[in-house]
């Protein structure tokens, strides 16, 4: 199962206990019409471990690259061991974008666009 941080997603029924754990302990956001969403408050590693146990499948966190919008796979990141997506809610940058000298400027421009 893949979860894109910041985007709404759904999951198979997990039972009340697991649901409570996800929402109360791991601060996963829930909304009847939209489903679930990982927000800045969410404890991502905890979500991953609860779901892994409940669904018996691997849970992968994905982020959207702030520069190009492409997927950033946390599990492939060299810093995954110290970050695990936990500090990088909502935004990080993908490997392709990372290696461009323009990236810092583009990052700033992208932010300015959203801010306006």
């Amino acid at each position, binding site marked *: 199962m893949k979860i894109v941080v910041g985007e709404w997603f759904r999951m198979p029924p997990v039972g009340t206990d697991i649901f409570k754990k996800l929402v109360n302990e791991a601060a996963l956001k829930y909304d009847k019409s939209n489903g679930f969403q990982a927000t*800045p*408050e969410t404890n991502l590693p905890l979500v991953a471990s609860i779901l892994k146990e409940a669904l018996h499948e691997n849970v992968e966190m994905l982020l959207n690259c*702030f520069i190009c919008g492409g997927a950033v796979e946390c599990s492939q*990141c*060299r*810093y995954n061991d*110290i*970050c695990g997506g*936990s*500090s*990088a*809610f*909502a*935004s*990080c*940058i993908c490997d392709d974008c*990372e290696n461009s*000298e323009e*990236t*810092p400027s583009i*990052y*700033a*421009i992208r*932010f*300015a666009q*959203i*801010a306006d």
Partner: protein
Amino acid sequence: MWVEKHRPRNPNTMIGNEEVRLAFLKWLKNWGKKSKPALLLGPPGIGKTTLVHAAADTLGYSVLELNASDVRTKTKLEERLAPSMLHSSLIEEKLLIFLDEVDGIYGRQDKGGVEFVQDLVKGSRHPIVMAANVEDDKKIQKLVKSAQVFKFQRLPPKLIEMAVKNILHREGLSLDQETLEKIVRSAKGDIRAAVNSAQVAVGAGEDVVTDMRDTSIGVVDALKLFFNASSSREALMAMRGCGAQPRDKIRAIFQSIMASGLQGEKLVKALEALSKADEIVEEIGETQNYRLLRYFDTILATKVFEALKGSDVHYKEESLPWPLQIRIWNEGKLLGEISQRLAAQHHTSSKQAALIYLPYVALLSKNSKSREDVVIARLRLDESQVKVLRKEELRVSQEVYKR
């Protein structure tokens, strides 16, 4: 220092915490007299202070910044800003009031701090922004209830790497990938730590990074930066970035001051400021309130730094031409005993204690009766030892003041 030089002046050029950054900008843009104050919460070195200044700048606000040392007690706070003044319409300028590091505000002496801030906030004609590291503190909790809270997280390692690389690039320098990764890893989401380490690393080669403990720079590097700092803020960065024990910082500064031949009024002022910092260390020891460490660094960077302004004090290692050394050494048993107790307390050799701590402790005691009481109690000095201490106080202060 790079952290100062490359501090983002515009919210757009910061990294991480995008949503919160946007939300804060929106808050300030839409600010009205009915708005709640903003409270920025989050770990160190991720840009709370930077964001407030950058946002204010781009939206045309002047910032009236009060830090922990201004606002730690209610009285001081009132000295700096009378609420009536801020509530009056006389100030037409677009002004943002920034209470940075509010977690440092409240010493145990002070009960009215929170209430005062709350009064201040009521009906303020200016946006009020507060920043703090913790939220589990009871007093911060009180503020949380009446504020709009913006929660910041540690910065993603990849973005830190990007930003550090960018700074290196702008400096026309580079670091190999392995070193860079080490720096980013040890920074643990704190970009200030990463930038400081990178600056040290390019200056001193890779060795520095390898035996760098945690994220911090050593006391020697920190002090060099401290004494060369061109502003209080830079001095603060230097102290913040250094994970040395507060006593070691004090001692090193003390030694450097004494070795510099600073004289008269300046010397007295510097030592008085240093003793303020020392009081905080005492308080931390007694209350185990390690949060005060931040306040301690602030004192060094404001009071001590200000006192040293314009004088030529540099970092000096060890052995000062301290005329007292020999005398103390030769002075009989009683002084030796005091030194031994000091040594135990400070975890150093009794020689070190005699050379460095004793004169210092004596000087502090001379300047303040309450400090003397503390020293006597902590070292459990008996009557005859107290007498020797007093003698020593006189001697040291004469030595110091005649310079």
